[in-house]
């Protein structure tokens, strides 16, 4: 057969694409369960990291069971609502892009070794190169932050990527969410610049201005809808 003919070329590429496509589909299907387990375990690890519990390897699921005593969904008025999808499986990414009044807001209730209750709230936003996300844990009175965890997909190593380091996340501990009974999201400001009025603030990452701004915007967008819920915790 003439290898330079159009028919041969066409047949060749169809066969090739079919073979490669089958191989890819097979890989994807056979690895899917493992990948989903990895992703779920990684999410549990991140949730625990926001209350300063480090878990790794096979112990993640056990530690998660041990510390996270319940998870539920609230709306922006702070009322618990029933939803078909479990709080853990809810896509924070999709929720963060809807209007605050329509959002389903997952809350993880965590009981530490000393018996203290913390509430963990998920966040999702945009950095410089791609998405950033994280979890903030709030003390049982809902007024101050206990811990934070941030992660990113592709921020510049050494600059924006520093948001995931304890040097940055530890700055959030003890920050106030309420001032004179009014809710203010914690602001992330460039070191030395004035913070917005009323709000508590942390210094951003030097050299990672846009990522730091993204973190601030993410906290504003994702934590503000929880203000009624957090207020209700204090009663």
């Amino acid at each position, binding site marked *: 057969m003439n*290898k*330079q003919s159009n028919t*041969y*070329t066409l047949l*060749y*590429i169809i066969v*090739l*694409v079919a073979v*490669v496509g089958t*191989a*890819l589909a097979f*890989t*994807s299907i056979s*690895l899917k369960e*493992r*990948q989903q387990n*990895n*992703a779920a*375990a*990684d999410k549990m690890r991140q949730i625990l990291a926001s209350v300063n519990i480090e878990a790794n390897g096979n112990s993640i699921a056990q530690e998660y069971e041990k510390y996270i005593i319940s998870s539920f969904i609230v709306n922006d008025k702070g009322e618990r609502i029933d939803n078909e999808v479990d709080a853990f499986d809810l896509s924070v990414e999709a929720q963060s892009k809807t209007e605050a009044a329509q959002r389903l807001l997952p809350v993880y209730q965590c009981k530490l070794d000393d018996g203290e209750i913390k509430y963990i709230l998920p966040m999702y936003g945009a950095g410089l190169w*791609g998405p950033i996300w994280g979890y903030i844990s709030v003390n049982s009175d809902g007024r101050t932050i206990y811990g934070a965890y941030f992660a990113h*997909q*592709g921020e*510049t*190593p*050494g*600059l924006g990527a520093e948001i995931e380091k304890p040097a940055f996340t530890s700055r959030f501990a003890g920050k106030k969410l309420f001032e004179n009974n009014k809710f203010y999201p914690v602001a992330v400001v460039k070191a030395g610049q004035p913070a917005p009025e009323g709000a508590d603030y942390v210094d951003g990452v030097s*050299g990672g201005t846009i990522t730091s701004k993204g973190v601030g915007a993410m906290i504003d967008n994702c934590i503000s809808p929880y203000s009624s819920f957090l207020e209700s915790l204090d009663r």
Partner: protein
Amino acid sequence: MSNKSVFFNPFSKNNPVVVQILGICSVLAVTAKLEPALVMGLSVIAVLAFSNVIISLIRNTIPTNIRIIVQLVVVAGLVVIVSQLLEAFAYDVSKQLSVFIGLIITNCILMGRLEAFAMANRPWASFLDGLGNGIGYTIILVIVGFFRELLGSGTLFGFQIVPQCVYEMGYVNNGLMILPPMALIVVACIIWVHRSFNKDLQEK
């Protein structure tokens, strides 16, 4: 060319990065830290070796006018498989490398080796050529990653190397090392050293 020289030449005399100046783009992107640099190198070795073998096996059936497309499809397929495998078995590393694994597809070394070697040689020689070029690429990546992480973050593989007391005496990590331009400058330094040892590579 003997199989031995096919395998060993890319390490130094015909290194894809410092002699052929290919694949510079990923050297900039993944070498700020040593660990991603190493995993990236290993992934490129795997993709390069296997795509070389596959293309070499089917080289006599490929219609000339779509050979680049065929090469791309094979490379893209392998890259997706590698990235899926990493996601299933080395989740943490796959998160660190994220987009860069996908960018192996655009690595010029791959197209270069497929077009220049695998299209004209037998599978075993092509396998060795892929392996050798992948290792040659990895060597440079690791050297660059070593200097950038050590001078830029004071760590290696994430472990602190520069002692705390040195920081207390006023030493500051060189933030410039983490930015892409320094990767080019480090590569240039490697080329300089490499050429001064290999006089025959110097242009008159």
